[in-house]
Protein backbone atom coordinates (compact mmCIF):
# COMPACT_ATOMS: atom_id res chain seq x y z
CA UNK A 1 0.00 0.00 0.00
CA UNK A 2 1.20 3.49 -0.84
CA UNK A 3 1.54 5.84 2.11
CA UNK A 4 2.10 8.76 -0.19
CA UNK A 5 0.41 9.40 -3.52
CA UNK A 6 -1.05 12.11 -5.67
CA UNK A 7 -4.73 12.74 -6.15
CA UNK A 8 -6.48 14.80 -8.81
CA UNK A 9 -9.67 16.74 -8.18
CA UNK A 10 -11.52 16.85 -11.49
CA UNK A 11 -14.03 19.65 -11.11
CA UNK A 12 -16.15 19.34 -14.21
CA UNK A 13 -19.43 20.50 -15.65
CA UNK A 14 -21.58 17.80 -17.20
CA UNK A 15 -23.75 17.52 -20.25
CA UNK A 16 -27.07 16.62 -18.69
CA UNK A 17 -28.41 13.27 -19.82
CA UNK A 18 -25.48 12.59 -22.16
CA UNK A 19 -23.44 9.74 -20.69
CA UNK A 20 -21.30 9.36 -23.82
CA UNK A 21 -20.15 12.99 -23.67
CA UNK A 22 -19.52 12.81 -19.93
CA UNK A 23 -17.54 9.57 -20.18
CA UNK A 24 -15.45 11.16 -22.92
CA UNK A 25 -14.64 14.06 -20.60
CA UNK A 26 -13.91 11.69 -17.73
CA UNK A 27 -11.60 9.65 -19.95
CA UNK A 28 -9.71 12.76 -21.07
CA UNK A 29 -9.16 13.85 -17.50
CA UNK A 30 -8.03 10.41 -16.37
CA UNK A 31 -5.33 10.67 -19.04
CA UNK A 32 -4.44 14.14 -17.83
CA UNK A 33 -4.21 12.88 -14.25
CA UNK A 34 -1.99 10.05 -15.42
CA UNK A 35 0.28 12.51 -17.20
CA UNK A 36 0.59 14.45 -13.97
CA UNK A 37 1.53 11.29 -12.07
CA UNK A 38 -1.68 11.12 -10.05
CA UNK A 39 -2.88 7.75 -8.72
CA UNK A 40 -6.47 8.70 -7.99
CA UNK A 41 -8.81 11.03 -9.85
CA UNK A 42 -12.14 12.09 -8.38
CA UNK A 43 -15.19 13.40 -10.25
CA UNK A 44 -18.34 15.04 -8.81
CA UNK A 45 -21.67 13.57 -7.72
CA UNK A 46 -23.72 12.17 -10.64
CA UNK A 47 -20.93 13.16 -13.01
CA UNK A 48 -21.90 10.40 -15.40
CA UNK A 49 -25.26 12.00 -16.15
CA UNK A 50 -25.37 15.52 -14.72
CA UNK A 51 -27.36 16.38 -11.59
CA UNK A 52 -30.63 17.88 -12.86
CA UNK A 53 -31.98 15.12 -15.08
CA UNK A 54 -35.28 14.68 -13.25
CA UNK A 55 -37.50 11.94 -14.82
CA UNK A 56 -34.72 10.97 -17.23
CA UNK A 57 -33.01 9.33 -14.29
CA UNK A 58 -34.97 6.13 -14.95
CA UNK A 59 -33.51 5.79 -18.45
CA UNK A 60 -30.03 6.83 -17.40
CA UNK A 61 -29.56 4.68 -14.30
CA UNK A 62 -27.42 1.56 -14.63
CA UNK A 63 -26.37 -1.22 -12.36
CA UNK A 64 -22.97 -1.02 -10.69
CA UNK A 65 -21.05 -2.84 -12.05
CA UNK A 66 -22.71 -2.15 -15.37
CA UNK A 67 -22.01 -0.76 -18.86
CA UNK A 68 -20.54 2.58 -17.77
CA UNK A 69 -18.43 1.21 -14.92
CA UNK A 70 -17.12 -1.38 -17.42
CA UNK A 71 -15.98 1.44 -19.71
CA UNK A 72 -14.30 3.22 -16.80
CA UNK A 73 -12.73 -0.10 -15.72
CA UNK A 74 -11.24 -0.45 -19.22
CA UNK A 75 -9.66 2.98 -18.82
CA UNK A 76 -8.36 2.41 -15.29
CA UNK A 77 -6.85 -0.95 -16.21
CA UNK A 78 -5.04 0.64 -19.13
CA UNK A 79 -3.85 3.66 -17.16
CA UNK A 80 -3.26 1.91 -13.83
CA UNK A 81 -5.39 4.56 -12.12
CA UNK A 82 -8.01 4.73 -9.41
CA UNK A 83 -11.18 6.67 -10.24
CA UNK A 84 -14.16 7.76 -8.17
CA UNK A 85 -17.22 9.16 -9.91
CA UNK A 86 -20.93 9.56 -9.28
CA UNK A 87 -23.82 7.97 -11.15
CA UNK A 88 -27.44 6.93 -10.75
CA UNK A 89 -27.40 3.25 -9.86
CA UNK A 90 -30.23 0.93 -10.83
CA UNK A 91 -30.97 -1.85 -8.41
CA UNK A 92 -30.22 -5.31 -9.76
CA UNK A 93 -33.43 -6.59 -8.23
CA UNK A 94 -36.06 -4.20 -9.58
CA UNK A 95 -36.62 -1.90 -12.56
CA UNK A 96 -37.28 1.34 -10.74
CA UNK A 97 -35.18 1.52 -7.61
CA UNK A 98 -32.42 4.01 -8.16
CA UNK A 99 -29.61 5.02 -5.81
CA UNK A 100 -27.44 8.12 -5.93
CA UNK A 101 -24.11 6.28 -5.89
CA UNK A 102 -20.38 6.71 -6.02
CA UNK A 103 -18.28 4.08 -7.76
CA UNK A 104 -14.64 3.35 -7.05
CA UNK A 105 -12.74 1.68 -9.84
CA UNK A 106 -9.06 0.73 -9.76
CA UNK A 107 -6.27 -0.70 -11.88
CA UNK A 108 -7.68 -4.20 -11.38
CA UNK A 109 -11.26 -3.21 -12.11
CA UNK A 110 -14.29 -2.42 -10.00
CA UNK A 111 -13.55 -2.01 -6.28
CA UNK A 112 -16.78 -0.89 -4.67
CA UNK A 113 -19.66 1.52 -4.44
CA UNK A 114 -21.40 3.73 -1.92
CA UNK A 115 -25.09 4.65 -1.95
CA UNK A 116 -25.87 8.15 -0.63
CA UNK A 117 -27.61 7.94 2.72
CA UNK A 118 -28.94 11.45 3.14
CA UNK A 119 -31.05 12.56 0.20
CA UNK A 120 -31.94 16.27 0.30
CA UNK A 121 -35.58 16.88 -0.52
CA UNK A 122 -36.16 20.52 0.28
CA UNK A 123 -35.55 23.85 -1.44
CA UNK A 124 -34.43 23.03 -5.00
CA UNK A 125 -33.60 19.42 -4.17
CA UNK A 126 -35.90 16.50 -4.97
CA UNK A 127 -33.68 13.51 -4.38
CA UNK A 128 -36.09 11.44 -2.30
CA UNK A 129 -38.53 11.59 -5.18
CA UNK A 130 -36.06 9.66 -7.31
CA UNK A 131 -33.63 7.80 -5.08
CA UNK A 132 -33.76 5.21 -2.37
CA UNK A 133 -31.27 5.98 0.40
CA UNK A 134 -28.33 3.72 1.07
CA UNK A 135 -27.97 1.96 4.41
CA UNK A 136 -24.26 1.14 4.52
CA UNK A 137 -21.15 3.18 4.98
CA UNK A 138 -18.42 2.28 2.53
CA UNK A 139 -14.73 1.99 3.20
CA UNK A 140 -12.48 0.17 0.75
CA UNK A 141 -9.06 -1.28 1.30
CA UNK A 142 -7.08 -0.27 -1.77
CA UNK A 143 -3.50 0.12 -2.89
CA UNK A 144 -3.98 3.76 -1.90
CA UNK A 145 -4.98 2.94 1.65
CA UNK A 146 -8.44 2.86 3.12
CA UNK A 147 -10.80 5.13 1.23
CA UNK A 148 -14.23 6.05 2.58
CA UNK A 149 -16.93 7.47 0.33
CA UNK A 150 -19.66 9.95 1.17
CA UNK A 151 -21.87 12.08 -1.09
CA UNK A 152 -22.70 15.78 -0.75
CA UNK A 153 -25.51 16.26 1.84
CA UNK A 154 -24.10 13.33 3.86
CA UNK A 155 -21.48 15.79 5.07
CA UNK A 156 -24.12 17.64 7.13
CA UNK A 157 -24.43 14.47 9.22
CA UNK A 158 -21.11 13.86 10.98
CA UNK A 159 -21.99 10.25 11.73
CA UNK A 160 -21.51 9.22 8.08
CA UNK A 161 -17.90 10.31 7.86
CA UNK A 162 -17.33 9.26 11.48
CA UNK A 163 -18.46 5.73 10.66
CA UNK A 164 -16.16 5.70 7.64
CA UNK A 165 -13.29 6.85 9.85
CA UNK A 166 -14.09 4.25 12.49
CA UNK A 167 -13.95 1.62 9.76
CA UNK A 168 -10.40 2.80 9.16
CA UNK A 169 -10.74 5.37 6.38
CA UNK A 170 -7.59 7.43 6.01
CA UNK A 171 -9.01 9.39 3.10
CA UNK A 172 -12.67 10.39 3.09
CA UNK A 173 -13.89 11.35 -0.36
CA UNK A 174 -16.99 13.52 -0.63
CA UNK A 175 -18.33 13.92 -4.15
CA UNK A 176 -20.85 16.72 -4.48
CA UNK A 177 -23.32 18.71 -6.59
CA UNK A 178 -23.70 21.76 -4.40
CA UNK A 179 -25.36 24.93 -5.70
CA UNK A 180 -23.84 28.35 -4.99
CA UNK A 181 -26.15 29.29 -2.12
CA UNK A 182 -24.64 26.48 -0.02
CA UNK A 183 -20.99 27.37 -0.52
CA UNK A 184 -20.37 28.68 3.01
CA UNK A 185 -21.86 25.53 4.57
CA UNK A 186 -19.65 23.18 2.60
CA UNK A 187 -16.52 25.20 3.16
CA UNK A 188 -17.07 24.96 6.90
CA UNK A 189 -18.23 21.35 6.97
CA UNK A 190 -15.48 19.90 4.78
CA UNK A 191 -12.87 21.36 7.12
CA UNK A 192 -14.78 20.24 10.21
CA UNK A 193 -15.14 16.64 9.00
CA UNK A 194 -11.39 16.44 8.30
CA UNK A 195 -10.45 17.86 11.70
CA UNK A 196 -12.91 15.89 13.83
CA UNK A 197 -11.89 12.64 12.14
CA UNK A 198 -8.19 13.40 11.81
CA UNK A 199 -8.30 12.15 8.26
CA UNK A 200 -7.70 13.52 4.78
CA UNK A 201 -10.85 14.76 3.12
CA UNK A 202 -11.18 15.29 -0.61
CA UNK A 203 -14.20 17.30 -1.71
CA UNK A 204 -15.04 17.44 -5.41
CA UNK A 205 -17.95 19.59 -6.48
CA UNK A 206 -19.72 20.08 -9.78
CA UNK A 207 -19.61 23.33 -11.77
CA UNK A 208 -21.80 24.68 -14.53
CA UNK A 209 -25.48 25.56 -14.74
CA UNK A 210 -28.19 22.91 -14.89
CA UNK A 211 -31.77 24.08 -15.30
CA UNK A 212 -30.87 27.48 -13.82
CA UNK A 213 -29.04 25.95 -10.85
CA UNK A 214 -25.43 27.10 -10.61
CA UNK A 215 -22.82 24.86 -8.99
CA UNK A 216 -19.90 26.58 -7.36
CA UNK A 217 -16.96 24.21 -7.63
CA UNK A 218 -14.39 25.06 -4.97
CA UNK A 219 -13.17 21.44 -4.76
CA UNK A 220 -10.48 20.95 -2.16
CA UNK A 221 -8.21 18.56 -0.39
CA UNK A 222 -8.01 19.06 3.37
CA UNK A 223 -5.39 17.59 5.61
CA UNK A 224 -6.13 15.85 8.93
CA UNK A 225 -5.25 19.08 10.75
CA UNK A 226 -7.80 21.07 8.75
CA UNK A 227 -5.25 22.69 6.47
CA UNK A 228 -6.45 23.23 2.91
CA UNK A 229 -3.81 21.52 0.82
CA UNK A 230 -5.33 22.22 -2.58
CA UNK A 231 -8.21 24.36 -3.71
CA UNK A 232 -9.88 24.46 -7.12
CA UNK A 233 -11.38 27.61 -8.62
CA UNK A 234 -14.90 28.77 -7.91
CA UNK A 235 -17.60 28.62 -10.60
CA UNK A 236 -15.52 27.20 -13.44
CA UNK A 237 -14.04 23.90 -14.50
CA UNK A 238 -10.71 23.18 -12.91
CA UNK A 239 -8.31 20.34 -12.38
CA UNK A 240 -5.90 20.35 -9.45
CA UNK A 241 -3.54 17.73 -8.10
CA UNK A 242 -2.11 17.38 -4.65
CA UNK A 243 -0.08 14.93 -2.58
CA UNK A 244 -1.62 12.88 0.18
CA UNK A 245 0.80 11.63 2.80
CA UNK A 246 -0.80 9.31 5.35
CA UNK A 247 2.16 9.71 7.71
CA UNK A 248 0.68 13.17 8.43
CA UNK A 249 -2.26 11.52 10.20
CA UNK A 250 -0.38 10.13 13.17
CA UNK A 251 0.95 13.39 14.63
CA UNK A 252 -2.51 14.94 14.37
CA UNK A 253 -4.19 11.89 15.91
CA UNK A 254 -1.82 12.25 18.82
CA UNK A 255 -2.18 16.00 19.13
CA UNK A 256 -5.99 16.12 18.72
CA UNK A 257 -7.04 12.62 19.82
CA UNK A 258 -10.71 12.80 18.87
CA UNK A 259 -10.97 9.09 18.17
CA UNK A 260 -9.32 8.13 21.46
CA UNK A 261 -11.71 10.46 23.29
CA UNK A 262 -14.89 9.12 21.71
CA UNK A 263 -17.68 8.44 24.22
CA UNK A 264 -19.77 5.51 22.89
CA UNK A 265 -22.48 5.95 25.52
CA UNK A 266 -23.34 9.36 24.01
CA UNK A 267 -24.35 7.65 20.79
CA UNK A 268 -27.06 5.76 22.68
CA UNK A 269 -28.31 9.05 24.05
CA UNK A 270 -28.15 10.56 20.58
CA UNK A 271 -30.23 7.71 19.23
CA UNK A 272 -32.85 8.17 21.94
CA UNK A 273 -33.01 11.91 21.42
CA UNK A 274 -33.25 11.57 17.63
CA UNK A 275 -36.13 9.10 17.98
CA UNK A 276 -38.05 11.59 20.09
CA UNK A 277 -37.64 14.84 18.18
Amino acid at each position, binding site marked *: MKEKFKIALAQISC*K*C*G*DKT*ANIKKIQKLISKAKEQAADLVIFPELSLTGY*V*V*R*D*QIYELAETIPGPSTKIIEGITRKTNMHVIFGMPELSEKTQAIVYNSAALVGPNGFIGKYRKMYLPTHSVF*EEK*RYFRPGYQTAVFDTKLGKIGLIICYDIFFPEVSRLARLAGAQLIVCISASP*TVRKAFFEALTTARAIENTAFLAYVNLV*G*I*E*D*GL*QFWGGSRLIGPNGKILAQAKY*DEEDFVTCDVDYTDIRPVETFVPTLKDLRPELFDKLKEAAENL
Partner: protein
Amino acid sequence: MELAPSVLDLNWQEVKMKIIRFIKDYFERTRAKGIIVSLSGGIDSSTVAALSALAIGKGKVFGLMLPEKETYNAKDVKHAELIAKKFGLKKERIDITPTLEAFYNSIPIFDPADNLCKGNIKARTRMVYVYYYANRLNMLVCGSSDKSETMMGYFTKWGDVAADISPIMDLYKTQVRKLAYHIGIPKEIVEKPSSPALWPGQFAETELGIKYEQLDLVLYGLEHFMKAEEIAGQLGIGKGLVEKVKRRWLATEHKRRMLLTTKIEYRTVGADFRLPRNTP
Protein backbone atom coordinates in the same frame (compact mmCIF):
# COMPACT_ATOMS: atom_id res chain seq x y z
CA MET B 1 -34.02 36.99 12.34
CA GLU B 2 -33.71 40.74 12.32
CA LEU B 3 -35.44 42.42 9.37
CA ALA B 4 -32.91 45.21 8.92
CA PRO B 5 -32.29 46.64 5.43
CA SER B 6 -28.85 45.00 5.55
CA VAL B 7 -30.45 41.55 5.07
CA LEU B 8 -30.91 42.54 1.44
CA ASP B 9 -27.23 43.32 0.98
CA LEU B 10 -25.38 40.95 -1.31
CA ASN B 11 -21.95 40.87 -2.86
CA TRP B 12 -22.94 42.72 -6.03
CA GLN B 13 -19.91 41.67 -8.00
CA GLU B 14 -20.75 38.03 -7.27
CA VAL B 15 -24.39 38.61 -8.19
CA LYS B 16 -23.37 40.32 -11.41
CA MET B 17 -21.10 37.44 -12.37
CA LYS B 18 -23.70 34.85 -11.46
CA ILE B 19 -26.27 36.51 -13.72
CA ILE B 20 -23.78 36.99 -16.53
CA ARG B 21 -22.85 33.30 -16.39
CA PHE B 22 -26.53 32.36 -16.38
CA ILE B 23 -27.35 34.47 -19.45
CA LYS B 24 -24.25 33.36 -21.35
CA ASP B 25 -24.80 29.69 -20.56
CA TYR B 26 -28.44 29.71 -21.65
CA PHE B 27 -27.66 31.76 -24.73
CA GLU B 28 -24.92 29.39 -25.85
CA ARG B 29 -27.05 26.29 -25.33
CA THR B 30 -29.89 27.62 -27.45
CA ARG B 31 -27.65 28.70 -30.34
CA ALA B 32 -29.72 31.89 -30.71
CA LYS B 33 -28.13 34.79 -32.53
CA GLY B 34 -28.83 37.40 -29.93
CA ILE B 35 -30.96 38.60 -27.08
CA ILE B 36 -33.88 40.97 -27.32
CA VAL B 37 -35.03 43.18 -24.48
CA SER B 38 -38.10 45.39 -24.39
CA LEU B 39 -36.37 48.61 -23.41
CA SER B 40 -38.66 50.98 -21.52
CA GLY B 41 -36.03 53.30 -20.08
CA GLY B 42 -36.82 52.01 -16.59
CA ILE B 43 -34.37 50.46 -14.15
CA ASP B 44 -35.30 46.79 -14.67
CA SER B 45 -35.06 46.65 -18.46
CA SER B 46 -31.95 48.86 -18.41
CA THR B 47 -30.26 46.50 -15.95
CA VAL B 48 -31.21 43.38 -17.85
CA ALA B 49 -30.13 44.86 -21.19
CA ALA B 50 -26.78 45.90 -19.71
CA LEU B 51 -26.19 42.48 -18.12
CA SER B 52 -27.08 40.79 -21.42
CA ALA B 53 -24.56 42.93 -23.27
CA LEU B 54 -21.92 42.13 -20.66
CA ALA B 55 -22.75 38.43 -20.98
CA ILE B 56 -22.84 37.90 -24.73
CA GLY B 57 -21.14 40.99 -26.12
CA LYS B 58 -22.09 44.32 -27.55
CA GLY B 59 -23.96 44.21 -30.81
CA LYS B 60 -25.73 40.95 -29.98
CA VAL B 61 -28.34 42.58 -27.78
CA PHE B 62 -31.31 44.25 -29.36
CA GLY B 63 -33.25 46.90 -27.44
CA LEU B 64 -36.77 47.29 -28.74
CA MET B 65 -38.43 50.54 -27.64
CA LEU B 66 -42.20 50.43 -27.87
CA PRO B 67 -43.71 53.74 -26.75
CA GLU B 68 -47.34 54.73 -27.26
CA LYS B 69 -49.15 58.03 -27.32
CA GLU B 70 -51.03 57.95 -24.02
CA THR B 71 -48.08 57.24 -21.73
CA TYR B 72 -45.34 58.71 -23.92
CA ASN B 73 -42.59 60.15 -21.77
CA ALA B 74 -39.68 61.83 -23.53
CA LYS B 75 -37.46 61.18 -20.52
CA ASP B 76 -38.05 57.40 -20.69
CA VAL B 77 -37.21 57.36 -24.38
CA LYS B 78 -34.07 59.39 -23.67
CA HIS B 79 -33.09 56.93 -20.93
CA ALA B 80 -33.63 53.93 -23.21
CA GLU B 81 -31.47 55.60 -25.88
CA LEU B 82 -28.83 56.32 -23.25
CA ILE B 83 -28.66 52.65 -22.22
CA ALA B 84 -28.53 51.51 -25.84
CA LYS B 85 -25.60 53.84 -26.46
CA LYS B 86 -23.74 53.12 -23.25
CA PHE B 87 -23.93 49.32 -23.59
CA GLY B 88 -23.66 49.15 -27.37
CA LEU B 89 -27.11 47.70 -28.08
CA LYS B 90 -28.75 47.50 -31.46
CA LYS B 91 -32.04 49.34 -31.19
CA GLU B 92 -35.29 50.10 -32.85
CA ARG B 93 -38.13 52.34 -31.81
CA ILE B 94 -41.70 51.60 -32.91
CA ASP B 95 -44.72 53.65 -31.97
CA ILE B 96 -47.33 51.01 -31.13
CA THR B 97 -50.24 53.51 -30.92
CA PRO B 98 -51.83 52.49 -34.26
CA THR B 99 -51.80 48.82 -33.26
CA LEU B 100 -53.35 49.61 -29.89
CA GLU B 101 -56.04 51.74 -31.52
CA ALA B 102 -56.84 48.91 -33.91
CA PHE B 103 -57.42 46.68 -30.89
CA TYR B 104 -59.53 49.28 -29.08
CA ASN B 105 -61.67 49.85 -32.16
CA SER B 106 -62.19 46.19 -32.93
CA ILE B 107 -63.25 44.97 -29.49
CA PRO B 108 -67.03 45.31 -29.16
CA ILE B 109 -66.93 45.41 -25.37
CA PHE B 110 -63.92 47.75 -25.16
CA ASP B 111 -64.23 50.26 -22.29
CA PRO B 112 -61.72 53.12 -22.49
CA ALA B 113 -62.34 53.96 -18.83
CA ASP B 114 -61.13 50.56 -17.65
CA ASN B 115 -57.44 51.37 -17.21
CA LEU B 116 -56.40 47.88 -16.14
CA CYS B 117 -57.91 45.98 -19.08
CA LYS B 118 -56.72 48.62 -21.50
CA GLY B 119 -53.25 48.70 -19.92
CA ASN B 120 -52.95 44.93 -20.23
CA ILE B 121 -53.55 45.22 -23.98
CA LYS B 122 -50.50 47.49 -24.09
CA ALA B 123 -48.30 45.01 -22.21
CA ARG B 124 -49.50 42.09 -24.33
CA THR B 125 -49.08 44.06 -27.57
CA ARG B 126 -45.47 44.78 -26.61
CA MET B 127 -45.02 41.06 -25.99
CA VAL B 128 -46.26 40.33 -29.55
CA TYR B 129 -43.75 42.77 -31.04
CA VAL B 130 -40.89 41.46 -28.94
CA TYR B 131 -41.63 37.84 -29.81
CA TYR B 132 -42.03 38.67 -33.49
CA TYR B 133 -38.55 40.18 -33.50
CA ALA B 134 -37.19 37.24 -31.52
CA ASN B 135 -38.70 34.76 -33.97
CA ARG B 136 -37.69 36.65 -37.08
CA LEU B 137 -34.13 37.34 -35.93
CA ASN B 138 -33.61 34.07 -34.02
CA MET B 139 -33.12 35.79 -30.70
CA LEU B 140 -33.96 35.00 -27.12
CA VAL B 141 -36.34 37.20 -25.16
CA CYS B 142 -34.83 38.38 -21.93
CA GLY B 143 -37.42 39.42 -19.37
CA SER B 144 -37.03 42.24 -16.85
CA SER B 145 -39.32 41.21 -14.00
CA ASP B 146 -37.90 41.63 -10.50
CA LYS B 147 -38.79 39.61 -7.43
CA SER B 148 -40.91 42.31 -5.75
CA GLU B 149 -43.29 42.70 -8.66
CA THR B 150 -43.27 38.98 -9.43
CA MET B 151 -44.21 38.03 -5.87
CA MET B 152 -46.89 40.72 -5.80
CA GLY B 153 -48.29 39.59 -9.15
CA TYR B 154 -47.68 43.15 -10.28
CA PHE B 155 -47.39 42.37 -13.98
CA THR B 156 -49.56 41.44 -16.91
CA LYS B 157 -50.13 37.72 -17.33
CA TRP B 158 -48.73 36.71 -20.74
CA GLY B 159 -47.62 40.32 -21.18
CA ASP B 160 -44.49 42.01 -19.84
CA VAL B 161 -43.55 38.86 -17.92
CA ALA B 162 -43.39 36.72 -21.06
CA ALA B 163 -39.77 35.80 -21.74
CA ASP B 164 -37.37 32.93 -22.32
CA ILE B 165 -35.22 33.86 -19.33
CA SER B 166 -35.71 36.31 -16.47
CA PRO B 167 -32.26 36.97 -15.02
CA ILE B 168 -33.24 39.38 -12.21
CA MET B 169 -36.39 37.61 -11.05
CA ASP B 170 -34.73 36.51 -7.82
CA LEU B 171 -33.74 40.06 -6.81
CA TYR B 172 -36.04 42.45 -4.97
CA LYS B 173 -36.48 45.92 -6.44
CA THR B 174 -34.19 47.57 -3.87
CA GLN B 175 -31.57 44.93 -4.69
CA VAL B 176 -31.94 45.61 -8.41
CA ARG B 177 -31.20 49.26 -7.64
CA LYS B 178 -27.94 48.33 -5.96
CA LEU B 179 -26.98 45.97 -8.76
CA ALA B 180 -27.87 48.67 -11.29
CA TYR B 181 -25.48 51.12 -9.63
CA HIS B 182 -22.83 48.45 -9.52
CA ILE B 183 -22.95 47.83 -13.26
CA GLY B 184 -23.06 51.52 -14.14
CA ILE B 185 -26.71 52.29 -14.85
CA PRO B 186 -27.01 56.10 -14.63
CA LYS B 187 -28.39 57.53 -11.39
CA GLU B 188 -31.28 59.30 -13.14
CA ILE B 189 -32.60 55.90 -14.29
CA VAL B 190 -32.01 54.11 -10.98
CA GLU B 191 -33.67 56.79 -8.89
CA LYS B 192 -36.76 57.64 -10.90
CA PRO B 193 -40.02 56.27 -9.51
CA SER B 194 -40.96 52.89 -10.98
CA SER B 195 -43.94 52.74 -13.27
CA PRO B 196 -45.35 50.02 -15.53
CA ALA B 197 -46.62 52.95 -17.69
CA LEU B 198 -49.87 51.27 -18.60
CA TRP B 199 -51.78 54.52 -18.09
CA PRO B 200 -50.75 58.12 -17.39
CA GLY B 201 -49.73 58.86 -13.81
CA GLN B 202 -49.41 55.20 -12.81
CA PHE B 203 -46.69 54.63 -10.19
CA ALA B 204 -45.81 51.28 -8.68
CA GLU B 205 -45.45 52.34 -5.05
CA THR B 206 -48.72 54.31 -5.08
CA GLU B 207 -50.56 51.39 -6.62
CA LEU B 208 -49.03 48.79 -4.33
CA GLY B 209 -49.69 51.05 -1.34
CA ILE B 210 -46.23 50.60 0.13
CA LYS B 211 -42.68 51.83 -0.48
CA TYR B 212 -40.28 49.31 -2.01
CA GLU B 213 -37.88 49.70 0.93
CA GLN B 214 -40.65 48.39 3.19
CA LEU B 215 -42.27 45.98 0.75
CA ASP B 216 -39.00 44.20 0.08
CA LEU B 217 -38.44 43.57 3.78
CA VAL B 218 -42.00 42.28 4.19
CA LEU B 219 -41.50 39.93 1.25
CA TYR B 220 -38.09 38.90 2.56
CA GLY B 221 -39.72 38.01 5.89
CA LEU B 222 -42.42 35.98 4.12
CA GLU B 223 -39.75 34.28 2.02
CA HIS B 224 -38.03 33.28 5.26
CA PHE B 225 -41.21 31.79 6.75
CA MET B 226 -41.74 34.65 9.24
CA LYS B 227 -45.22 35.27 10.62
CA ALA B 228 -47.14 38.46 9.78
CA GLU B 229 -47.12 39.63 13.44
CA GLU B 230 -43.39 39.19 13.65
CA ILE B 231 -42.76 41.11 10.42
CA ALA B 232 -45.11 43.92 11.40
CA GLY B 233 -43.58 44.17 14.87
CA GLN B 234 -40.05 44.34 13.57
CA LEU B 235 -40.78 46.87 10.84
CA GLY B 236 -43.07 48.96 13.03
CA ILE B 237 -45.96 48.77 10.54
CA GLY B 238 -49.54 47.59 10.86
CA LYS B 239 -50.20 43.86 10.79
CA GLY B 240 -53.00 44.63 8.32
CA LEU B 241 -50.51 45.95 5.76
CA VAL B 242 -48.33 42.85 6.07
CA GLU B 243 -51.38 40.63 5.71
CA LYS B 244 -52.50 42.56 2.66
CA VAL B 245 -49.09 41.98 1.02
CA LYS B 246 -49.23 38.31 1.98
CA ARG B 247 -52.74 37.87 0.58
CA ARG B 248 -51.75 39.49 -2.68
CA TRP B 249 -48.65 37.30 -2.93
CA LEU B 250 -50.64 34.10 -2.37
CA ALA B 251 -53.59 35.14 -4.54
CA THR B 252 -51.42 35.75 -7.59
CA GLU B 253 -49.71 32.36 -7.74
CA HIS B 254 -51.84 31.58 -10.82
CA LYS B 255 -49.89 34.29 -12.67
CA ARG B 256 -46.56 32.66 -11.87
CA ARG B 257 -47.41 29.15 -13.04
CA MET B 258 -48.17 27.78 -16.42
CA LEU B 259 -50.60 25.34 -17.97
CA LEU B 260 -52.94 24.26 -15.21
CA THR B 261 -55.00 21.22 -16.07
CA THR B 262 -56.72 18.50 -14.12
CA LYS B 263 -55.06 15.16 -13.75
CA ILE B 264 -56.62 12.46 -15.91
CA GLU B 265 -53.80 10.31 -17.23
CA TYR B 266 -50.57 8.61 -16.13
CA ARG B 267 -48.17 11.56 -16.37
CA THR B 268 -49.40 15.12 -16.75
CA VAL B 269 -47.86 18.24 -18.26
CA GLY B 270 -47.12 20.79 -15.55
CA ALA B 271 -47.67 18.27 -12.75
CA ASP B 272 -45.70 15.05 -12.78
CA PHE B 273 -43.93 15.28 -16.10
CA ARG B 274 -40.71 16.47 -14.52
CA LEU B 275 -38.19 17.08 -17.23
CA PRO B 276 -35.12 19.28 -17.33
CA ARG B 277 -34.86 22.13 -19.79
CA ASN B 278 -32.35 21.93 -22.66
CA THR B 279 -32.35 18.16 -22.95
CA PRO B 280 -29.80 17.25 -25.64
